[in-house]
C-alpha cells in the first residue's frame, strides 16, 4: 500500500512539473504586461515534441541518443525520494539527500557529455559553463543541507521533515541562512535568471540551451521535462524542508488531499516569488556567477556556524 502510494506520489510529481513551469510563465507574463499562454501550454509542447521524428547530427554517438533517457530517469528517481505530499514513504529510505545531490550530478554528467558529443562550439561552451557553475553550486548546496541535517541529525529527507514538524514553529537563525543559501543555489542549478536565461537563444548568454541545441523530438521532450521536474524538485525541497506544515504524516485520504493542497499552494507562492525576481533582475555576466555562488556558500557557512554556536545543545 505504502509502495503504491510512493509510486503514485512520484507519478504525481512528474505530472505536475510542467504545470509548475506553465504557472511560472503565466505569472511572469502578467508581471511583464504580456499576454500569457494557457497553463497547459508546457504539456502541449511536450506532447508535440514526442510526436516528432528526432533529427540527430551525423556523427552523434550513443551517448547523445541515450543521454535523454538517463537524464530523465535520474531526475525521476530524484523526485521519487523527495517527500511531496506525505512523509514516511518507503522510497524515502532508498536514498538520502546526499544521494539526491548525486542523482543531479549523474544527470548533469550525461547532459554535459551530450553537449560535447556533436563537436560544435555551442555544445562545448554549454558543457564547460554548466560544469563550472555546478561545481561551485554543489558545495554551497551541501553546506545549506548540512545545516539542516545536523539539526535533525539525519540525512534522510523524510525524517528531517518530521523532525522540523515536531519542533514546531521555532525561528532558527541557521535555518534562515540555509533557506537563503538554498534559494540562491536553486536559481543557479535550475538555470534561471540571473544565472542563466531559459528563454534566450543568444549564444553569449546561454548555458543550458547551448548544451541541448542539437536535440529535437522526443529527446528534447525528455530533457525539457527533466529540467521542469528539477525546477519543481528544488521548489519542493525549499517548501517542505523549511515550511513543512501541511504535509501528510498519516496515510488517510483526507491527510493526503490536505498535503496535496498544501504543496500546491506553497509551490504557487514560490513560483510567484521567482517570477517577481526574474522580472526585476537582469542576467549577470558569467564571471559574476562565482561571486553569487560564493555568497550562497557564505550564507550556508554562516548557517552552519550559527547552528554550532547558538543552537547546539552544548
Amino acid at each position, binding site marked *: 500500500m505504502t509502495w503504491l502510494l510512493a509510486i503514485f506520489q512520484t507519478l504525481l510529481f512528474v505530472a505536475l512539473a510542467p504545470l509548475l513551469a506553465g504557472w511560472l510563465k503565466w505569472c511572469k507574463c502578467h508581471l511583464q504586461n504580456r499576454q500569457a499562454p494557457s497553463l497547459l501550454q508546457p504539456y502541449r509542447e511536450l506532447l508535440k515534441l514526442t510526436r516528432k521524428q*528526432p533529427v540527430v547530427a551525423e*556523427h552523434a554517438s550513443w551517448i547523445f541518443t541515450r543521454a535523454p533517457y538517463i537524464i530523465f530517469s535520474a531526475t525521476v528517481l530524484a523526485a521519487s525520494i523527495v517527500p511531496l505530499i506525505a512523509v514516511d514513504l518507503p522510497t524515502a529510505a532508498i536514498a538520502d539527500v546526499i544521494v539526491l545531490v548525486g542523482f543531479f550530478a549523474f544527470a548533469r554528467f550525461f547532459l554535459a557529455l551530450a553537449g*560535447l558529443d556533436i563537436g560544435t562550439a555551442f555544445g562545448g561552451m554549454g558543457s*564547460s559553463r554548466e*560544469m563550472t557553475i555546478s561545481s561551485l553550486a554543489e*558545495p554551497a548546496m551541501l553546506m545549506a543541507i548540512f545545516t539542516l541535517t545536523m539539526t535533525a541529525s*539525519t540525512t534522510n529527507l523524510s525524517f528531517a521533515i518530521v523532525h522540523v514538524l515536531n519542533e514546531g514553529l521555532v525561528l532558527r537563525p541557521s535555518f534562515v541562512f540555509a533557506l537563503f543559501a538554498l534559494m540562491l543555489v536553486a536559481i543557479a542549478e535550475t538555470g534561471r535568471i540571473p544565472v542563466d536565461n531559459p528563454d534566450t537563444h543568444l549564444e553569449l548568454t546561454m548555458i543550458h540551451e547551448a548544451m541541448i541545441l542539437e536535440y529535437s523530438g522526443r529527446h528534447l521532450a525528455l530533457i525539457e521535462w527533466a529540467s521542469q521536474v528539477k525546477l519543481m524538485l528544488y521548489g519542493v525541497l525549499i517548501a517542505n524542508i523549511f515550511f513543512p506544515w501541511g504535509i501528510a504524516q498519516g496515510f488517510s485520504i483526507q491527510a493526503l488531499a490536505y498535503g496535496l493542497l498544501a504543496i500546491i499552494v506553497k509551490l504557487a507562492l514560490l513560483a510567484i516569488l521567482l517570477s517577481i525576481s526574474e522580472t526585476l533582475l537582469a542576467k549577470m555576466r558569467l*564571471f559574476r556567477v562565482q561571486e553569487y555562488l560564493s555568497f550562497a556558500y557564505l550564507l550556508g557557512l554562516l548557517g552552519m556556524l550559527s547552528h554550532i554556536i547558538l543552537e547546539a545543545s552544548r
Partner: protein
Amino acid sequence: MMTMILAYNAVLLSFASGLLALLSNQRAMLMALSQRYLTSDFHYPRCRKFLDRILEENRHASLHRRAVFVLLGLSGVFAVLAGLAVMMGQDSLTDQIGLGLPWLPWHVRFDGLSGFFYLIIGIGVIAVSLYGPAYVAFYQESQNPFAVLGLFTGLFVGGMLLVLLADDAFFFMIAWELMSVASYFLVAFQHEHSANRRAAFIYLLMAQVGALAIILSFGVLASFSDGFTFDALRQATLSPTWASIAFVLALLGFGMKAGIVPVHVWLPEAHPAAPSHISALMSGVMLKVAVYGLIRFCFDLLGELQWQWGVVLLVLGTVSAVGGILYAMMQPNLKRLLAYSSIENIGIIFMVLGLSMIFMANGHPQLAALGFLAALFHAFNHSLFKNLLFLGAGILQHQTHDLNIDTMGGLIQRMPQTSFLFLVGCMSISSLPLFNGFVSEWLAFQTALQVDVLDNGVLRSLIPVSAAALALTAALAAACFVKVFGMIFLGLPRSRNSEKAQEVKDKSMLYGPALLAGLCFFFGIFPNLIINLLNGVAKQLLGQSLPNDTALSWLWLAPVSANKVSYSPPMVLVGVLIAGGISFWYLRRNLETKTMRRAAAWDCGFGGLTPRMQYSCSAFTMPFRRIFARVWLIDERVDKEMQGAMDMEVKAVHYHLQVQDHSWPRLYQPITHGVNQLAKQVGRIQTGNIRVYLGYSFVTLILMLWVIS
C-alpha cells in the same frame, strides 16, 4: 597456516615471474645452442617437438612474455585468496623467516589490515597481467628489453606484498626499499628520453628522503622500547611530544610515497614516464601501500592517538584533494592528469583517516570505525578505477601514439569497447551513484556529519567546512572527467592519428580493464560485501565495529542507524531501470518516428564545421582558470604573426598556455638553492693544498686521542 602459505606463494610467484623474465631471455640462446649440438644423439621426438615449438623464432618471445605474466597473474590470484581468507578468518597469523640479521629473523604477521591490502594488490596485479602481454609487445626488444621490465615488475610486486607482511622495522624497511628501488627502475625504463630520466631521479630522491623519515620515526619508537619488532614497538610508551615527533616523521615519510601535497611532485613526473601498466600499479596499488604504512604506524604501533594529528591529516588531506583535482583539470597530458587525480583521491583518504583519528581520540570509537572504513573503502575503490583509467590510457597511447588530450577526439566511434570501459572509470571516479566511488564518498560525508558528538567548537566548525571542500572536490572531479571523456572520445577527431585510430586488435588487452570496470559497477551496487569484510578489519585494529553492523544486509547500507540514514544501491538501480525502460518504450512505440533522421550538425548557416571549431581542453577549463586563478602559476600568451604592407594583417595567431605547480618555486627551488649554498660553504675547507689536508688529519688524530684518553 593455509592462509600463510597462500600469502607466501603470492610473494614467491611474483619473484618467480621476475626471474623467469630474466632467465629465459638467456635460455633462449642456450637452447638454440643445445639444439645445434644435440641433433645427433637426442632421441625423444615428442620433447624435441615441444622444444622446437617453444623456441620457434616468432612465437618464442610472445609465449615467454605470456608465461611471465601468467606467473604474475597467479601471484595476484594467490594474493586475493590469501587476503580474503585472512579477513574471513578474523585472526592474525604470525611467523618467522630465518633470513635477515642473525639476532633478528624476519618477523611476519598477516592480519585483516594486511589482508585487505593484499586484496587490493591482488586485483590490481591480476588486471595488469591480463593486460600486460599485449601491451609490452609494443616495445622494441633492442631498446627496451623485456627482461628488465619483467624482472623489476616481479620485484616491485613482491616488495609490495612483503611490506604488508612485515612485522619488524628492519624487514619492513627492506621490503619498502625493494618496492621503491624496483619501481625506480620501472620509471626509468624508457630512459632514452631525458624527461623520463629526470622523473626517475626525482622519484628516487624523494623515495629515499621519505624512507629516511620512516626509519627515523621507527627509531623514535624503538628508543622507547626494547627491540625493533612491531610487538615491542607497540609496547612503547611515549610522551606526547615524542609521539608527535614520531607521527610527523611517519607522516612525512609515508605522505611522500602517497603523494600528499606538498610532497607530491614526484607523482606527476613519474607516472607519465613509466609504462602504462606500471603506472597503473604505482598509482592504483603502491600509493595504497603507503596508506597502509601510515595506518599501521598510527593506528597500530603508536598507541594513543591525539586529535591534533587528526586535524593535521584532515587539513593536509583537504588541501591535497582540492589542489590535486584543480591541477588535474589543467593538464593536457592524460597520464599527468590521472597522476594529479591520484593526489586528489589520496587526499580524500587522508581526510577521512583524519576524521577517524579525531573521533578515536575524542572517545567515539564507533564513529572512528566508520571513518576508518570509509577511508579503506575509498582506497579500494581508487585502486579499481585508477587502474582502469591508467590501463585505458595505455590503450589510447598504443592506438593513437599520443597522450595529449587536445589531439584526440571522436574515438567513441572508432574504439567503442575501450570507450565504454573508460566511461565506467570516469563515472566511478566522478563519484556518481551506482558506482563504487560514490559509496565511499557517501560514507565519508556520513562520517563528517556525525560531528555533533564532539565537544570542541573549532572541530565542530572545521569538519563541516572540510566536508564542503569534499563536495567541491567531487564536483570538480566530475567536471574534470567530463572534460577527459568528452575531449578524448566525443566530438570530431582533432588529429590524423585519432582519425585513423582503431580498436585494439588483441582483445586480451581489454580483459584487464573489463574486469576492473565490472568490479567498479559490482561494488557500486553491492558495497556491503566489502564493507562487511572491512568491518572485521576495523574490529581487529580499532577494537570497534560500525555503530549499526547488524543492519548490514545486501540490500541496505545503513552504517549509523537504520532510521537515520540509508542508501540502497540495488533499489536505485531497479528504479532507474524502470524509469528509463518505461520512457524508452513509451516514446519509441510509434513506428513512424522510431527511427532517427541523421542530418548535419547546426553550423549557424555558415557551413563547414571543422574539428578546430570544437571546444578544446584549455577552452573547457577556461572558466575554472579564471575563477581559481591564484591556484596555479599560469603563463598565458597570445602571439600574433603580422604580414602585409603595414604589418597590420594578421597571418597567424598562436596561443600558448603553461600551467605550473606552485610547489616548485615556493618549496623545492629554495631547498635546492639552500643545498647548493651549503655545499659551497662546505667546499671552502677543500683548499686543494696538501698541507692543509695534513693539518686536518693531524687535528683529527689529536682530537681522537683526546677523546679516547
